[in-house]
């Protein structure tokens, strides 16, 4: 245990402190305390990242440990790892849940992402949430979230990950339901929790299967040596014709898919926008939703060496989801929903990248992995930025609907420029960060699977289109009648915007492939100019169409809508997936199964017990004539009793 534990301890203590005595501290104190706490954590995280990546050594427990192995690959370091719960038994003597901190390239990278975005959100929220009821509660939950998310990424074993996985789930639930008086928020929170919980169940079963055979939870042992442990313990095992490893890993992926809102679990994320916008930025855009990607990345060696088919499956799921979400994003009018679908689409990109990735660093085989993580990083920055901008806009007009906005560039200049930067980044226009990461993804896809490449390239165009649709609708277009003149957000809100915009601008120039690779060995990326050109062109086409349609109010949007009428309606209604879910849960599970079971319980099971009692009473009542009061009848019964018994005794 050393200073690294503070990374987890500070947010946790902050959560307890603000949660228990936040009311007494008052909102101002709570905001400052929360932000200060997180600043410390951020500094620590940067220090760790700095020592790990640049100094190639991390001082843990007073000893300077090298972050590089002899062969030049990155080394995973553990600062502490204690037994939290012993689950051993005769069969699996070493099975235990440990809590520890693991530092390797992806976890350190995630530390940076999380703390950065979280700090920005903390600062931003001081302005955004100003005067809100439950301000202290908000900060306390933010701290809880930061704690959980940091715990998740530094997890040394899959069960620790699951523990924090659940914790981020609950903090997400609490934040979505922050405006608990609003029925829609409560509903959205419930939906988010239950859908992810449903996926978590698969995750859990996956863990159980995996750990049953490997007899351990530890990532180091599971992943180590090209997942040799999985190979020796599970290789060749089949269940109903499928490889057990594949089943386990598919289940684990489904868990990740739930958190990362992959199809068909995507339904919760758009609704999750009911939460305060900064928390959406943090949780539902930048960090928590990428946990699924992180999970797959964490177990990447297992996926790659033991279940390639699952990886392909992931790629297809990702590709489909990205296309699907992008299509929907084109039709939405609630700006946060557009961003939400965009998030789904972008995360799906990362999934695709993992799915098409190879392993070795040589010949850029593991490019997809690097690209995925890179996109994770850049996406976190620009998506958080987008959300915060959206927050600033909502803050200004008190509405989420595009129709209430327009021509806002003159009222909100900072927001406007930062938003534009983010739009360029997500659209993949150089030199903004999104260009680089997305380009690598497309390259990886191109080299592995043509169908997926085409699909992703098309999605890239769509992305550019809907983002600029959003941009023009908000900042250009016709000016609606505002209730009051919109004004720029306070400093506490604009500074984070600027910081993130800066990250977005420079993020593409980080030599990511030196640090983060599937094999942990750094390499140089050479840009594939053909693909880069194609993607830029596609993006520009998208932007052009958007400019044409939405810069000024004109009849083209309606015309286009009319052409794709049915399709538009379907997309607008998110392809009715929510309705299908609602039908299954409300009508079938609640309406039929639960009601039936409850009825069955009351009327059959309990009814049977009551019937017993009722019968007893009935028999009692019916037999009262036996006791007729007539002494002669008594004698009759007496003598008949004797006769019967004699008969029984003699003949039986």
């Amino acid at each position: 245990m050393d200073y690294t534990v503070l990374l987890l301890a500070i947010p946790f203590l902050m959560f307890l402190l603000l949660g228990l005595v936040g009311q007494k501290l008052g909102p101002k104190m709570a905001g400052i305390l929360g932000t200060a706490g997180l600043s410390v954590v951020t500094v620590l995280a940067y220090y760790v990242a700095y020592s790990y990546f640049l100094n190639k050594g991390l001082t843990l427990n007073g000893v300077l440990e090298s972050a590089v192995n002899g062969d030049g690959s990155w080394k995973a370091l553990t600062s502490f790892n204690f037994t939290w719960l012993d689950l051993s038994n005769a069969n699996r003597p070493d099975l235990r849940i440990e809590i520890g901190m693991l530092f390797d390239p992806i976890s350190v990278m995630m530390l940076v992402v999380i703390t950065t975005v979280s700090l920005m959100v903390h600062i931003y929220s001081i302005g955004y949430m100003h005067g809100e009821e439950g301000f202290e509660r908000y900060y306390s939950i933010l701290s809880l979230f930061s704690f959980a998310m940091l715990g998740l990424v530094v997890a040394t074993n899959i069960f620790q990950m699951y523990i924090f996985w659940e914790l981020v789930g609950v903090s997400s639930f609490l934040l979505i339901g922050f405006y608990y008086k609003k029925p829609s928020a409560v509903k959205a929170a419930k939906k988010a929790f239950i859908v992810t919980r449903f996926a978590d169940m698969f995750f859990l079963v996956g863990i159980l299967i995996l750990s049953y055979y490997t007899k351990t939870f530890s990532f180091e042992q599971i992943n180590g040596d090209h997942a040799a442990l999985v190979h020796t313990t599970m290789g060749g095992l089949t269940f109903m014709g499928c490889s057990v490893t594949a089943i386990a890993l598919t289940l684990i992926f489904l868990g990740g898919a739930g958190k990362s809102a992959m199809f068909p679990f995507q339904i919760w994320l758009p609704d999750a926008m009911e939460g305060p916008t900064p928390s959406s930025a943090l949780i539902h855009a930048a960090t928590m939703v990428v946990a699924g990607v992180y999970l797959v990345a964490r177990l990447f060696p297992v996926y790659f060496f033991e279940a390639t088919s699952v990886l392909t499956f992931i790629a297809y799921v990702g590709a489909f989801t990205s296309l699907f979400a992008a299509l929907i994003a084109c039709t939405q009018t609630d700006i946060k929903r557009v961003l939400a679908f965009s998030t789904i689409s972008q995360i799906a990109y990362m999934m695709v990248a993992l799915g098409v990735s190879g392993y070795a660093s040589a010949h850029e085989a593991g490019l997809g992995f690097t690209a995925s993580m890179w996109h994770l990083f850049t996406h976190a920055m620009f998506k958080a930025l987008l959300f915060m901008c959206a927050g600033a806009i909502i803050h200004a007009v008190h509405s989420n609907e595009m129709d209430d906005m327009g021509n806002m560039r003159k009222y909100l200049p900072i927001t406007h420029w930062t938003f534009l930067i983010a739009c360029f980044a997500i659209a993949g226009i150089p030199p903004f960060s999104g260009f680089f990461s997305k380009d690598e993804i497309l390259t990886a896809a191109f080299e592995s699977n043509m169908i997926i490449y085409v699909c992703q390239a098309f999605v890239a165009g769509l992305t550019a289109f809907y983002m600029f649709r959003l941009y023009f609708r908000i900042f250009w277009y016709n000016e609606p009648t505002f209730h009051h003149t919109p004004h720029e957000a306070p400093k506490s809100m604009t500074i984070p915007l600027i910081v993130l915009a800066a990250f977005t601008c420079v993020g593409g120039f980080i030599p990511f492939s030196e640090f983060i690779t599937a094999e942990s060995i750094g390499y140089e990326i050479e840009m594939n100019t053909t693909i880069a050109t194609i993607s830029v062109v596609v993006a520009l086409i998208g932007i052009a169409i958007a400019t044409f349609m939405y810069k000024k109010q004109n009849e083209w949007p309606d015309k286009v809508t009319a052409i794709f009428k049915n399709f538009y309606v379907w997309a607008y209604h998110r392809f009715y997936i929510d309705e299908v879910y609602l039908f299954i849960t409300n009508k079938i599970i609640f309406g039929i199964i639960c009601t039936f079971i409850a009825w069955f319980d009351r009327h059959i099971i309990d009814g049977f017990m009551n019937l017993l009692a009722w019968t007893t009473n009935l028999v009692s009542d019916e037999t009262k004539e036996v006791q007729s009061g007539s002494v002669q009848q008594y004698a009759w019964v007496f003598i008949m009793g004797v006769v019967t018994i004699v008969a029984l005794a003699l003949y039986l």
Partner: protein
Amino acid sequence: MNVPVEFYLVLSTLLFFIGVYGFIVRKNLIGILMSIELILNAVNINFVVFNRFLFPEKLEGYMYGLFVIIVAAAETAVAIAIIINVYRNMKNIDVDSIKELKN
């Protein structure tokens, strides 16, 4: 005259069941009491016959018969007293009048 033992037993059994039958069908309490006497007489016949024919070396059966007679007398005395009490309370000694306590 040598009546076989079976004849006595048939008699006593008949007497017993006549007593039982009487107990069940008689409407008058005194009649019922008399039926009981029949049963007891059947018993007495049994005892005496068994003693006389089967185990003549001891007197147990005779003794038992004597006791039964004595006890029956006492029983009848109390029974009649109670029947008188019934009569006093209900003004008749019909068996149907003692059917109030039931269920």
